């Protein structure tokens, strides 16, 4: 066998375009050979361990057009290359879309948020440790899953939607944007696609090697959040092993329009229970038009976990998910 290499960054071709057209042209030309680089917090681990070996990187952090937060006709638009810290601290986001501010503010650690981008957080790759170790599993183009075996260490893995691969979506901002009914703006040399947040992520049944529907040559350039849920009641909670740096064991992002104790409408999504942010439509339907109560919260919890299929070590995610949904229905204390 040939040595497996860890911990030394290889040589790599680095492109640093300063305008959109150049970036899109590069992405178009390089396709899957051109690794899109934001803050690098997902990238550098792969490169250093030499578990992914792209020929080139296209760094997007110098493209001002894809940074910043601005008001648009029906809401706000956030450049995908905006840092998470900027989003968490932005007055507009805090006042109208506090759910996203909270989610962004819970990602990883302050150091990572200072350079990590929203786009990067959304398109980040799975964190299954077998996959990250560089093993040739399904997600890496191989033909096996090491996590989903009788003794696999799958404590952090999925309880829904497994199809050979059992990795989960690790993003904290993704469930928030699904709940806010955001739209992803995707650009390529051939034009622009607008994709609803919920449809942006893809599970292994449909695509086992990618976490999003981005095609080769496409770049996520902006995220638009409509006014629909502006100033609604928000609930975000992330439960992780440690209080910083860790990915969620389970997270919940909820938006609700409540009037006189009655939940008029709601959107709820959970993170880290499936390979995509899991929108809980059945729960939303059960809440609509109902009086908020502990009993309603319990009902919602039971609906939320229906169909869960735990693996070896992630049974705890079922009660945890139920409890978080319960807390979301209860709202802020």
């Amino acid at each position: 066998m040939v040595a497996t290499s860890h911990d030394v960054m290889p040589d790599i071709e680095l492109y640093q375009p300063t305008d959109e057209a150049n970036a899109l042209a590069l992405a178009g030309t390089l396709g899957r050979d051109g690794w899109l680089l934001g803050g690098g917090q997902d990238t550098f681990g792969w490169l250093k361990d030499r578990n992914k070996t792209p020929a080139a990187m296209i760094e997007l952090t110098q493209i001002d057009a894809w940074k910043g937060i601005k008001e648009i006709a029906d809401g706000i638009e956030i450049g995908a290359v905006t840092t998470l810290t900027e989003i968490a601290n932005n007055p507009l986001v805090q006042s109208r879309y506090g759910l996203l501010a909270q989610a962004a503010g819970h990602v990883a650690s302050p150091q990572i948020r200072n350079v990590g981008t929203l786009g990067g957080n959304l398109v980040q790759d799975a964190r299954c440790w077998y996959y990250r170790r560089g093993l040739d599993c399904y997600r890496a183009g191989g033909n096996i899953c090491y996590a989903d075996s009788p003794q696999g260490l799958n404590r952090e893995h999925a309880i829904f939607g497994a199809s050979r691969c059992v990795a989960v979506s690790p993003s904290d901002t993704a469930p928030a944007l699904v709940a806010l009914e955001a739209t992803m703006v995707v650009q390529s040399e051939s034009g622009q696609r607008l994709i609803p947040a919920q449809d942006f992520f893809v599970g292994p049944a449909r695509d086992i090697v990618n976490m999003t529907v981005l095609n080769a040559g496409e770049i996520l350039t902006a995220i638009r959040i409509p006014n629909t849920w502006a100033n609604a009641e928000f609930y975000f909670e992330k439960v992780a092993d440690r209080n910083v740096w860790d990915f969620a064991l389970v997270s919940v992002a909820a938006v609700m329009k409540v009037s006189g104790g009655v939940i008029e409408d709601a959107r709820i999504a959970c993170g880290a229970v499936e390979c995509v942010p899991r929108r809980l439509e059945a729960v939303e339907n059960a809440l609509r038009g109902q009086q908020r109560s502990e009993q309603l919260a319990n009902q919602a919890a039971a609906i939320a976990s229906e169909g869960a299929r735990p693996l070896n070590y992630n049974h705890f995610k079922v009660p945890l998910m139920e409890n978080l949904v319960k807390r979301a229905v209860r709202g802020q204390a």
Partner: protein
Amino acid sequence: MGEIVRYKRDVWGEDVILGVSWDLLWVVAVAVLILLAAHAIVMAALANKKMDIPSAEGRRVLRHESIDRLFHWVMAASIFALIITGIAPILGWGWAWLDMHWIAGLLLTFVVIFHIIRSLFWQDFKSMILGPRDFGEPFDSAKKPGKYSFEQKGMHWAVTIVVLAVVVTGILLFMQIDTPFWDRTNSMAESQLGLMFLLHGLATLALIALVATHIYFALRPEKMFYTRSMLTGWISEDEMSANHDPSRWSPKEAD
């Protein structure tokens, strides 16, 4: 052109087979297209020489019973479904293909087993056996076949081998994933797993080539009556005497 076999590293860093290289899909597609197109062109050039298509009118003889025709079309449909669902992820079509694939696979397995038993005990098995006489048949227009011609027998056995290969490997692969019946065990060595994927892939490529060929010939004007017989069950006496030796095959009259 690329490679034939793809490799990966097993869990301990050793190189093992991953599966067939899907570059070969294009090779097979192109090869089949070229070969079948060449056949069509050659046949068209020879058209004025020979093609006297016998009449479909008149008395009818039974070629395929309804149960066998059902078997054939169910098998065809399941193979079609298997090929489409199997190729979908390779071509990047983003739909959930896996469940449909193994369900079609189980269906195919079931009908294949059915057919094996039926053909061994309820049908004239000998009529499908290839013998030395069959190999001389294409070169001697005086030699007419029994129920099945050399080409038909050849296609049958080629498909048999390939379908058995794809089904057996498919079942072994099916046993490696989570299903409603069992949870995966990862007990098959990765080298063996890769070999199963390779054989399954090669068998798939062969099957695609055979299916394309089979459909082509099934749609040829001079063979079309066979296709009709797989739908309706009968061929005409004219068609029978033009293409078969009655001393080798004497079907009963069709209803």
